């Protein structure tokens, strides 16, 4: 995923509006991980989910290049040159770690042994489709493991900025870009809020400080439903 400078989709009025930073977005999704879940994190904001440590839940991190139960990023100087995660970052071993070859790793992914994958995206649609492998006008694309994860994981969460650098909505009625998978997205964290994908489309359940649902709707390309229990974006 391309990493963009952090955009502020709405001008900050009176300093009250505070879009969420990337770690806060990642933390919020990580709060949804249940004890024992097998978790696969994409590159970019999703990787930051591993920084959130739940006090009484243990999750198992899985990486598409054949790692199960790997540890945190390696400190400089302690890298094993042959131990990397899906983003090519050097990680450390954990007790209980296991290695699979690539075909077995994706067998695990497709067969539903991954409880949640957190991915980045260019667009997500109200029907649960999302697009993250090809930008407009390009001949080539980068699929990597995203299509397999999207159809195989029991839960697909997305973390993305609410708008493009040009201010165009990334939450839309239907994807304009080529999709990665159809109807799979359950939960979306953006810098403006938390959105469940329901039969009726996007449901805004938590919102960034200082924003109103109308503010968020103004930069969203699909009809937003607002939860009767709408609350400020949770940080823990």
């Amino acid at each position, binding site marked *: 995923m391309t990493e963009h400078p952090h955009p502020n989709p709405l001008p900050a009025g009176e300093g009250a509006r505070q879009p969420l930073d990337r770690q806060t977005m990642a933390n919020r999704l990580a709060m949804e991980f249940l004890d024992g879940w097998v978790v696969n994190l994409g590159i970019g904001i999703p990787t930051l989910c591993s920084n959130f440590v739940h006090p009484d839940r243990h999750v198992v991190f899985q990486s598409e290049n054949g790692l199960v139960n790997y540890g945190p990023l390696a400190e400089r100087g302690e890298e094993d*040159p042959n131990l990397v995660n899906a983003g090519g970052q050097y990680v450390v071993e954990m007790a209980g770690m296991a290695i699979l*070859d690539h075909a077995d790793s994706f067998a695990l992914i497709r067969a539903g042994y991954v409880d949640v994958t957190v991915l980045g995206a260019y667009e997500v649609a109200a029907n649960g489709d999302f697009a993250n492998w090809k930008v407009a006008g390009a001949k080539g694309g980068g*699929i990597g493991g995203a299509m397999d994860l999207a159809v195989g994981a029991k839960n697909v969460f997305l973390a993305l900025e609410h708008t493009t650098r040009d201010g165009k909505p990334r939450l839309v009625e239907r994807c304009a870009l080529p*999709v990665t998978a159809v109807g799979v997205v359950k939960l979306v964290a953006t810098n403006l809020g938390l959105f469940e994908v329901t039969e009726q489309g996007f449901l805004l359940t938590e919102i960034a400080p200082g924003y109103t649902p109308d503010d968020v709707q103004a930069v969203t390309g699909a009809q937003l439903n607002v939860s009767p229990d709408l609350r400020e974006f949770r940080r823990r």
Partner: protein
Amino acid sequence: MWRTARFRANVAPMRDKVYPDFDAAVADIPDGASIMLAGFAGPGTARNLIAALHRQGAKGLTLISNTPGRWQDDRIDCGVLVKDGRVAKIHAAFTASPHPSVPSPFTDLYEAGKIEAELMPQGTLAERIRAAGAGIAAFYTPTGVGTEIADGKETRVFNGREYVLETALPADYAFVRARRADRIGNLQYHRTQRNFGPVMARAAKTTIVEVDEPVVEEGSIDPDHVHTPGLFVDRIVVVPPDGIQEEPPER
């Protein structure tokens, strides 16, 4: 050390697959060959064999590789073959750089129509290679259903879910990197060096392996600890101390 000495006396010596150097191991690869290149984000990439093939000069190659070459640093990988026009076609899970600000040598050639590519999901790539080495002609996968990847392909519903038909992907050669081998090619990989190695070794007609450690006698690797049996391996070259090592890049 594991030994099965009591069965050794009555059999002819097994063929020694160790080659003296990388150039000898790739010398016969012709123009137009198809070659699988193991490796994921560095580990498992047979960098010394790729460098030798680059020196050897074969062209019109078809490559099967997770990516069309790295861009983060200048370590040798298939990008060197792509950059110098040796590659006609590549089968990969990426045909764009994940970091658009740092394009790969492949990107410009591909956008200009000077190289062919087949893009597919990474799990489909791995499974197509696995199928080729497992006697399976084709398989149905849920990955890619409803996307451009399924365009023009047969789909079928099983138990209420739609799947797309994908075919096996074999090759003439595979280049694999492992930690150690015995003389007859039984292999062990280290950590995520394993990735595509085991499936590519089975799917290629000729599998060439570079290994980090000196070759050991057969019997030295416990049979329960062999990751790739030697019957899938044809040629072995030991990476010398002055060869290309897998190292963390400067940061």
